[in-house]
């Protein structure tokens, strides 16, 4: 049996007196991959921010590896929807920043080179974000979150701003990186197909502000989209979330 990694113990959060998250009790296992889905405004990003330690629950508590979370952890990495790449940092500077922040003085860490190679960014090492395409920027941001070898990887709509082909490329990259590391992945998406490809378990945030968990039988399957029943499952989920089918 896998060890419980994150425990949300009756967590509630509200905006302006209106409950967004209501009495959520949830357990995430170490090394798992979780897709957080729900309608717009259902509180997906809020829940992610709570687990990142950016906000504190109004009621209840969040425990990660037995420690109550009250501020961001060094071992957690966050991939922001808007990426947040600094215009003054080149690709290699951006990717090496997390290591430098931890005190690494190695100018040319072989780990950075290796990760940039895996991400197909070697030829862009000295470029600034303004010189890159949307997909390349997304890969830089992903590399920046992975370089510190986090035990928890949080992603907020990681592929939302990308075209279909670049989106697929990035999804493959995320799967590959996940297989090579053992970080727990929790990501928010409004794209049901993406949730089915990347999420081992689907966390469905209901309109009432509660979470229901569902296993994803298509996770890890090669060419998941081509498997029988994949799209039927997607439609079921869309109906469940009351999204347009």
């Amino acid at each position, binding site marked *: 049996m896998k060890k419980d990694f994150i425990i949300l113990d009756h967590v509630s959060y509200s905006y302006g007196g209106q409950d967004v998250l209501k009495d959520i009790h949830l357990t995430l296992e170490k090394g798992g991959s979780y897709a957080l889905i729900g309608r717009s405004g259902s509180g997906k990003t809020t829940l992610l921010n709570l687990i*990142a330690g950016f906000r504190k629950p109004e009621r209840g508590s969040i425990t990660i590896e037995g420690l109550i979370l009250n501020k961001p952890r060094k071992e957690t990495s966050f991939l922001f929807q808007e990426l947040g790449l600094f215009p003054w940092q080149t690709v290699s500077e951006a990717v090496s920043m997390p290591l430098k922040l931890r005190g690494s003085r190695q100018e040319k860490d072989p780990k950075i080179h290796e990760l940039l190679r895996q991400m197909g960014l070697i030829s862009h090492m000295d470029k600034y974000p303004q010189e890159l395409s949307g997909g390349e920027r997304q890969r830089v941001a992903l590399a920046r979150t992975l370089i510190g070898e986090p035990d928890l990887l949080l992603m907020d709509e990681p592929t939302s701003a990308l075209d279909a082909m670049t989106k697929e490329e990035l999804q493959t990259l995320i799967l590959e990186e996940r297989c090579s590391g053992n970080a727990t992945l929790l990501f928010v998406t409004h794209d049901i197909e993406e949730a089915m490809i990347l999420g081992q378990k689907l966390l469905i945030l209901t309109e009432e502000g509660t979470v229901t968990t569902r296993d994803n039988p298509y996770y890890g399957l090669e060419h998941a989209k081509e498997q029988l029943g994949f799209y039927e499952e997607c439609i079921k989920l869309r109906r469940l979330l009351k999204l347009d089918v």
Partner: protein
Amino acid sequence: MKRLKNVTQGLLTGFISFVVLWELLYLLLHTHTVPSPIETVLYMLQNPGKLLLHCIASFLRVITAISISLVIGVVTGVLLGVNQTCKRLFSPLLYFIYPIPKVAFLPVFMLLFGLGNTSKIILVIWIIVFQIMLSVRDGVEQIAPLYFKVMDSFCVTRMQRYQYLILPAILPQIFSGLRISIGISLASLFFAENYATVYGIGYYILSAWTKMNYVEMFGGILALGFLGIVMFWAIDRLEMICAPWMKLTKNRNK
């Protein structure tokens, strides 16, 4: 490199246009109070040592004043940008002082700090420091909240936040503040150098004027212009070294 070439080309075009206009004015007015550009340049070349000495005196005063203003302006500007209490306490005072014509303080500074260089440098600092301070404060306030969140996600220390986020983010404002400061500081120094000194380009111009040596006077004006151009060019060069990414942002905004 291309940008540097463009800047140099721009400066050269500007200089040629200025000389052409000056020559036209000389030909139209035909008075001894406006000498020809050729005559002026020849005069400058005949007496380079004296002119250079005055230029160096002014340059040293300006560079000292700008350096001190930069340190005070950046530190206080950042403080005003990040600390809401400081902002609430000092912003009204800043807004009150900012529009006051600060050259009027020269007699006060001369009384307090003597007739030498100190009072002149302090006057220039007094004039430009608020410009830098406000530019930097605005720069800090314009940093996207997302960038702070990114730094929070890496659990950075306060010093790391300054090193990796705040200081690089305010570089554009520092450089624009510096550009404005050069023009203002040269103008205010010209005024300050008319009192209690025998060195400086301001003194040189006014002294030539009182001697009715108009060729020398125009030579001084031209030298003052060159000093400004050289300093602008140096700032451009420094910007390209310290913040090479800024040219990309500027190009994207065009």
